[in-house]
């Protein structure tokens, strides 16, 4: 891979770190460079430290590394938090006029730029971050015109004066560095003619939902799922839909269920604590056989855990949560782009099988802004399959001798007909109580078994009809097998490529049903399952499926895997050294 640059801006929450980082990422994307961003809300020191990190290259980047080349530090804490990632060619841009006495590590180049006073000269202190972006352009040898264009995008709606002031502020930062420092920085950001789009996992889920014809969304704000709701708000209505901020997650899932029963494609999104609250109604969704998509963007648990930290700890809950036995699908996209595709697929699965679908994301993917070719989100390729909705003309076929609609008809494939409200002669009631074909309460032992079997049979049907394959990378003939799920894919791919690890890598986007990995595991000499949780929930499933012990790499300190760190751990496993679990 040609040189990648790792850039970050850090300060206190409220310093506009996120939006500044996004402006820079956008500028890089406009320059035809690939971008992979990550957000750091540190927990080592209490308080509001926050950083936005951008990794960029002309090649595609799918992960973070533990290295920082250019750091815009608005506070001393930003430097302290990142000391380990700095190296002897790192550059720190800081404002020596500010009240803190910046302590710049010895081997690092410190560029003292009067960010605040330059911003004031350009029209307002508020633009100090933009001055810093200009300074960064000088250090990274990056054409400031790309920054112009992303400032235009960010502030264009607020008037041309504001845009011009910001563009001016950026130039003052750049020129200050040119005029006052004559270092020869080792960075140079090549540009290309590519046109990329830049988005994160939550946005991709929201876009996927609209593409799938979802018109109803009810949710309750929770990190890191809120961005799904914020994305849909103001957009879904253009397509005839609506977003409701419910009073809590209990209301959110019930509103979604109500909407789904009218025939709308309906979705809710939340994170672990919200899934807990939704679990009772989840059982009703499944027994009433209502198609619905429920998104869980995981964060560190249990309880309120670490709300702004990465974890993949909800798997067992999604698979087994709820009393009784509940057929469901659990789908877990492995990249930001897959968040889009799997959301579309989730709606199709939900409607074809009249079963709730858990779509599992995680914080790392939800907040990661990543560049893609727009073709990766090909709207023409979207196909929506609604399953067995019965039109008025065919309703007769599904009525019993007394003219009642058989909403839970015991069919061979387990899938019953669906009459949407308003369909003449389709009126029926559905209940969470065990029911007969008509949806009426029963405690008849035979009917009970028949209905349980019918609902479970849908999963068997789906197993046969759908393609539950996994994504494969690396050397298919290697005796070393790496298995993972969720957002770890990028870091693992890069670790393998960059550090020459000989392994077959299977990244699994379906948790239930899931691809059968027995053959792959049996063929391998050594299998390692990588996931961001302490107990290895996915590894347990693999062992259960394949009756073979697997090795595990687990990380649960709240931070996503970095490629270089993973490279060491994976190599250690395959070289017979037990990896150390990062706590």
């Amino acid at each position, binding site marked *: 891979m040609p040189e990648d640059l790792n850039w970050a801006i850090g300060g206190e929450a409220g310093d506009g770190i996120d939006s500044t980082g996004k402006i820079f990422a956008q500028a890089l994307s406009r320059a035809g460079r690939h971008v992979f961003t990550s957000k750091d809300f540190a927990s080592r020191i209490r308080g509001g430290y926050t950083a936005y990190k951008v990794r960029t290259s002309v090649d595609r980047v799918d992960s973070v590394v533990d290295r920082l080349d250019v750091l815009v530090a608005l506070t001393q804490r930003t430097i302290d938090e990142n000391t380990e990632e700095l190296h002897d060619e790192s550059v720190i841009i800081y404002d020596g006029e500010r009240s803190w006495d910046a302590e710049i590590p010895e081997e690092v180049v410190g560029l003292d730029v009067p960010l605040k006073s330059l911003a004031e000269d350009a029209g307002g202190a508020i633009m100090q971050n933009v001055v810093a972006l200009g300074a960064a352009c000088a250090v990274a040898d990056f054409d400031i015109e790309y920054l112009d264009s992303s400032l235009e995008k960010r502030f264009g709606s607020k008037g041309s004066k504001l845009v011009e002031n910001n563009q001016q502020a950026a130039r003052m930062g750049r020129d200050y560095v040119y005029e006052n420092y004559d270092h020869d920085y080792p960075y140079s950001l090549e540009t290309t003619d590519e046109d990329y789009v830049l988005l994160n996992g939550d946005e991709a889920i929201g876009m996927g939902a609209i*593409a799938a*014809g979802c018109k109803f969304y009810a949710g309750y704000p929770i990190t890191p799922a809120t961005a799904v709701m914020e994305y849909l708000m103001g957009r879904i209505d253009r397509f005839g839909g609506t977003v409701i901020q419910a009073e809590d997650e209990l209301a959110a899932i019930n*509103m979604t269920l109500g909407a789904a029963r*009218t025939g709308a494609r309906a979705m809710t999104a939340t994170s672990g604590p919200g899934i807990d609250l939704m679990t009772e109604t989840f*059982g009703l969704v499944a027994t009433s056989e209502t198609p619905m998509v429920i998104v869980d963007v995981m964060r560190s648990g249990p309880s309120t855990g670490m709300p702004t930290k990465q974890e993949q700890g909800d798997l067992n809950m999604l698979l087994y949560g709820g009393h009784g036995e509940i057929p469901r699908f659990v789908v877990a996209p492995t990249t930001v782009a897959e968040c889009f595709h799997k959301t579309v697929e989730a709606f199709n699965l939900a409607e074809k099988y009249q079963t709730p679908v858990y779509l599992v994301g995680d914080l790392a993917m939800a907040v990661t802004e990543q560049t893609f070719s727009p073709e990766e989100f090909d709207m023409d390729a979207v196909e*929506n399959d609604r399953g067995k909705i019965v039109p008025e003309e065919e309703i007769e076929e599904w009525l019993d001798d007394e003219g009642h609609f058989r909403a839970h008809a015991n069919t061979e494939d387990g899938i019953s007909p669906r009459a949407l409200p308003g369909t003449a002669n389709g009126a029926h009631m559905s*209940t969470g109580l065990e029911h007969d074909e008509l949806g009426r309460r029963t405690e008849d032992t035979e009917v009970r078994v028949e209905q349980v079997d019918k609902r479970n049979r849908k999963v068997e049907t789906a197993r046969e009809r759908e393609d539950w394959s996994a994504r494969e990378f690396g050397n298919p003939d290697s005796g070393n097998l790496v298995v993972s799920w969720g957002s770890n894919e990028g870091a693992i791919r890069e670790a393998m490529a960059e550090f020459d690890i000989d392994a077959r890598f299977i990244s699994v986007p379906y948790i239930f049903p899931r691809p059968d990995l027995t053959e792959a595991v049996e063929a391998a000499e050594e299998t390692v399952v990588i996931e961001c949780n302490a107990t290895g929930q996915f590894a347990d499933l693999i062992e259960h499926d394949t009756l073979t012990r697997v090795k595990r790499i687990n990380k649960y300190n709240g931070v996503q895997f970095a490629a270089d760190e993973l490279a060491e751990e994976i190599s250690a496993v395959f070289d017979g050294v037990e990896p150390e679990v990062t706590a």
Partner: protein
Amino acid sequence: MSSETQAHFTDFKSDKQPTWCPGCGDFGTMNGMMKALANTGNDPDNTFLVAGIGCSGKIGTYMHSYALHGVHGRALPLGTGVKLANPELEVMVAGGDGDGYSIGAGHFVHAVRRNVDMTYVVMDNRIYGLTKGQASPTSREDFETSTSPEGTKQSPVHPLALAFSAGATFIGQTFSSDALGHAAVIEEAIEHDGFALVNTYSPCVTFNDVDTYDYFRDAIVDLEEEGHDPTDYEAAREKIMDFDTVYTGVLYQDESSVGYEKRLGLSESMADVPEGAPDGADDLVREFY
């Protein structure tokens, strides 16, 4: 059921025989609901009934329409989702006082302030029936039950006052055995544009020997006979805050009310899904350039 022919109230009856105790107030409550639905020009195919959990919640089984029997306390959010996603449906929600004012109390307040156009009939028997006789949030302070052997020692919830303070646009109260009066109030509730609460006294003959038919028959004051004007806010407030009198009729109606779904600009069913991404979806990708 074709919509050209006017439905008869028996069209809303299922052929399941209710398992309510003989004499239960819920029979009368249900009959009035069916009559009101038919009288307002609805039929089972355009009606969606959401029921709670409890003896009262069984109503979904005994009526015939599109219906969903929810989980305990969550009927109002269900009804909200149904109505917003298809405003063409007539949405009626029914449940008990435990369902609506205890486990579902949070949703009740928000349903009131959200003002989605639906009718909420609470079958208030001042006790938990289905779980066999525990105190409910509307039980009197000195009411002795298995879970309140020396009385509840809490003041009861006053549903009408709760609704009023949350900004309700329609508040009615009925007595299930007053067949005509009960149906008439529900008809008005159906025709109201917005959230309409009808608290219906629906006596439990098995577990509540205090709030009986006789008690209600004696206690009730009919607002129509009183010449009450429900659109007079102050007069309504006075009646609603009078916790010592059991009024029936429409206590309050804000005639300028507009249902939430209208305020959101929703008027059509959201059931249509295109075969591919909807027109204009490409713009969504372009936004990320």
